[in-house]
């Protein structure tokens, strides 16, 4: 297991101090850590387990249960493409294929230049404007291949 970097350790400790007195705090703490670091480092597991009086297996079990938590650093940008039915009804499968080809990755992978991590998502709640994509927390509706490329170009342009 890779040891935590000092800055990572500081983040984990600080969030524990802030949140551990809340009832059932583990998921809240994981959100806070990922919010700062972009992922949950493996080395955080024993620290969280000890401070919250849980087994390492329990902490690991929670992190791996939820799709949202990542155990590896993502690319600079995260692109989520909706795979659910409403988007499929509007050409979502073609958009998925386009996104993968365009970025040269499969779902859960990061493009070779480290810029973009592609993730599937099951419904973004934008079903009257399908297909939907979320990029770094910003929602986009009625996304076709051309619009997808334009959104990527915006990212590269530093917007």
């Amino acid at each position: 297991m890779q040891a935590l970097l000092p800055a990572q350790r500081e983040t984990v400790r600080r969030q524990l101090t802030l949140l551990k007195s809340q009832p059932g705090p583990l998921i809240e703490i994981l959100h806070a850590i990922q919010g700062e670091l972009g992922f949950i480092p493996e080395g955080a597991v024993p620290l969280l387990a000890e401070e919250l009086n849980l087994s390492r297996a329990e902490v690991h079990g929670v992190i791996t249960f939820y799709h949202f938590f990542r155990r590896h650093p993502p690319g600079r940008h995260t692109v989520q493409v909706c795979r659910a039915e409403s988007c499929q009804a509007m050409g979502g499968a073609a958009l998925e294929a386009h996104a993968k080809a365009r970025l040269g990755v499969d779902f859960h992978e990061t493009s070779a230049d480290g810029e973009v991590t592609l993730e599937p998502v099951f419904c973004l709640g934008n079903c009257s404007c399908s297909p939907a994509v979320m990029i770094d927390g910003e929602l986009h509706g009625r996304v076709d291949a051309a619009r997808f490329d334009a959104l990527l170009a915006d990212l590269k342009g530093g917007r």
Partner: protein
Amino acid sequence: MKVFVPRDAAALSLGAEAVARAISEYADAHNLRLTLVRNGTRGMTWLEPLVEVESARGRIAYGPVTPAEVPGLFAADFLRGGPHPLCQGLTEEIAYFKQQQRLTFARVGVVDPLSAADYVAHGGYAGLKQALTLTPAAIVQAVLDSGLRGRGGAAFPTGIKWKTVLDAPAPQKYVTCNADEGDSGTFADRMLMEGDPFCLIEGMTIAGIAVGATQGYIYLRAEYPHAYRTLKAALEDAYRGGFLGANLLDSGRRFDLEVRLGAGAYICGEETSMLESLEGRRGEVRVRPPLPAIKGLFGQPTIVNNVISLSSVPVILEKGAAYYRDFGVGKSRGTLPIQLAGNLKRGGLVERAFGVTLRELLYDYGGGSASGRPLRAVQVGGPLGAYIPASQFDTPVDYEALSAIGALLGHGGIVAFDDTVDMAQMARYAMEFCAEESCGKCTPCRIGSTRGVELMDRILQGEPGDANLDLVQELCETMLHGSLCGLGGMTPFPVQSAIKHFPEDFRGRTRQ
């Protein structure tokens, strides 16, 4: 002069932020004084970004607006309702909107979602004030009498849940709101939380007063960052205004409320799984009994209600149980926010009394398919809902009528598909989704869904004979009867309905 530009996520997804910016910049550059209000959406998503201006006759709508159109709107004097090709007339006279019966969504798109004062100015908190004059039993009775049933999908009478919690003695009780709206085709919860969060806050407060719970949690899915920000800000404003906390509205009553984020697990929309997640654990389903109303969050009596159920409570308390109950048909009382999604020309939210038919919704409101091709099927009620063929589009949307044709209403989302849909692919997807989202606790769901994907793959590849299809049917029966919760137990609905109504998509596929 007030101008309204929605901050609802759907409107933002179509460029509302850039429109808002263009309007402010134009106004600043030309020394025009206007107040920009960032409201929720009116639910006519096909017109978003929908810009509204106030007039003596009511709000006037312009849409869909792009930033490039903004100078032209000013030139046409839209601030005074001037004519322009994008002008839709009075918002509330637009047929799509006018024919609705907005009870729960009465203020969505109207109020400033971040202002408790604006909520009160539009009649908000009348329900809570009424509740504070009643005994807990009388509040519960009002909810019972209204006929309100759980809008999350299970359709269990809300008042009965509340009565169970009220009657369970305990030092601490909880009110939890299930805002893990994961069903494809649904966005009513999100729209309400982003457009009128105080309505949910008020509903939860009434629930707390009714059953003697002093702590509430909103369990919100992580896919809704916009709703999260809105709720956080609204909760702060509610505390500031004395609508929450130790002595709310100077009543001597306490109710605290916070929002907790989920982490991308569909199963956490199942109530016991949601409670596990709120406690910080893996969202594995609990065996019932005990019911959450007896032994719920942290082992205490707990109300678990959906966003729309709780948000329907203020109007019931304000206007009375009979007022609400008088909408609807049979055992489906009140109104339902129906969400029109997928391949439709005019997607959006339609709040109507129960009883409107699928056909009216798909064609009169939805305008038919967006692609211009014939509609072939709709899926009602999310990924666990049945597929309904065009021959059954005259079915009214109510719990019993849908159940009678082997379908379910769920959370009221309708996803439309045109005739290019491959129903065998959709059946495969249902199994794949179940495999992806299964919590793993029970075998029929965990293993069955994976076997289901494999079988569907063989069917899709055109393996000859009906053996695979027979096996899928048998597997569906096992999942249906042997699963611990609705995920494994209802995944067969889309699969079996697809096979039943669209056998041609399954049989006789050519080998690939």
